């Protein structure tokens, strides 16, 4: 990752990628604190595709052991912020 992104930019990227994977989902209703899989019709293949897309979009390495940290919108934002050395969102 060459340029630090803001929390809003990260969230925007995450929502865009989710929208590509689950195009039928109404992401405006997504609760950022609740896990994606509790709100969206996505399975392990979708989640893997999401992780791959996030890796490719933001150029960050994501070990499999960290997948659980990417289970919600807030989790994703915090994870990427940490990876780029920034502040977590509350």
């Amino acid at each position, binding site marked *: 990752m060459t340029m630090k992104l803001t929390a809003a930019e990260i969230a925007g990227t995450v929502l865009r990628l989710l929208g590509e994977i689950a*195009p039928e989902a109404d992401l405006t209703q997504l609760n950022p604190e609740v896990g994606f899989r509790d709100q969206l019709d996505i399975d*392990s293949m979708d989640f893997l595709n999401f992780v791959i897309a996030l890796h490719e979009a933001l150029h960050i390495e994501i070990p499999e052991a960290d997948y659980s940290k990417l289970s919600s919108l807030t989790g994703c934002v915090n994870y990427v912020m940490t990876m780029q050395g920034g502040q977590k969102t509350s």
Partner: protein
Amino acid sequence: MAEFVMPTLGADMSAGTLVAWKKKEGDRVTRGEIVAEVETDKAAIDVEIFSTGVIEKILVQPGEKVPVGTVLAIIREEGAIAQAAPPAVEPSRLRISPSARQLARELGVDPAGVQGTGPDGAITRRDIETAAQAMGDRRRAIGESPAEPIAPSPAPRAGEAGDRLLRMRQAIAAAMARSKREIPHYYLSTTIDMGRALAWLSEENLKRPVADRLLYGVLLLKAVALALREVPELNAVWKDGQAVQSQVIHLGVAISLRGGGLVAPALHDADRQSLGELMQNFRDLVKRARAGSLRSSELSDPTITVTSLGEQGVETVFGVIYPPQVALVGFGKVVERPWVAEGTVVPRPVVTATLSADHRVTDGHRGGLLLAAVDRLLQEPGRL
């Protein structure tokens, strides 16, 4: 002359609507090439041709719904000429897998300009990805905008989606009712210790880049595919009153579709693929199944179905065989259970594997051997 007919894409299909021709009269076509798009009750399908030649006459026009077996076009075959002298390599003859070719289309990469690194110079998905990356780098270097991504198909209107779902349910109902009416099912189950397989998978995925990581389900698929080599009578179709064993192992993998319904397209030659290849092809299959771009051979070729409902919290699957197949293997979710190992009770991750099989073709003894083989293979995951 050869006939290009409306294919049958499963026991639940009696007719299809020709949506579009990808070729016109006078065009040359090559075996395996996609020449038409057909809509069935379940999905829109890219239909491949099984002969090489020139389209002499198109007999069915877009929008027409015709029964299975109807001649759609007449092909003037060139088989004898093609066999006499090997043709020069042309784009359609490149050594490239269907999966890599599809990826090339999606990424806007011309495979003819890609150097293959696979066996005998075959072009792999990785080669296509590398070429696409290089194209992007070149564009950025000269300040050019990236190519427009391929626009997804417009979402169907609510009414269309509802109609399609209704037709799909009717198709599934017809196939499942036929199955229960005609096939004397028997059911077996076994509990498999997944400790070794899951530990191996974690280690293996540490070595793999994100895009090449394996899902646990791929281990199950490969184990079933290899086990079928040991009990081949379960890898068969029922035809004209008898079982016909298949010489190839094409796993039909049950894939749930967004908005409801499911399809079970084929992962071709699953026993011959490495875990990495199987994973990439599985990913591609799921993606295309949900995008409505499966190929006709993928719906007509499965020789057995594998389904997993573990992600839905199901522990044991009692599947209904999809005719004309004669067996279905099901997996539930991985759960922690007390397990006796060397006289000690220890917690172990276990999964329940089930077999639904046609009693006209096999009995419980042979079915039990299949499940035992799946169990044994999963205890040596490094050899899958």
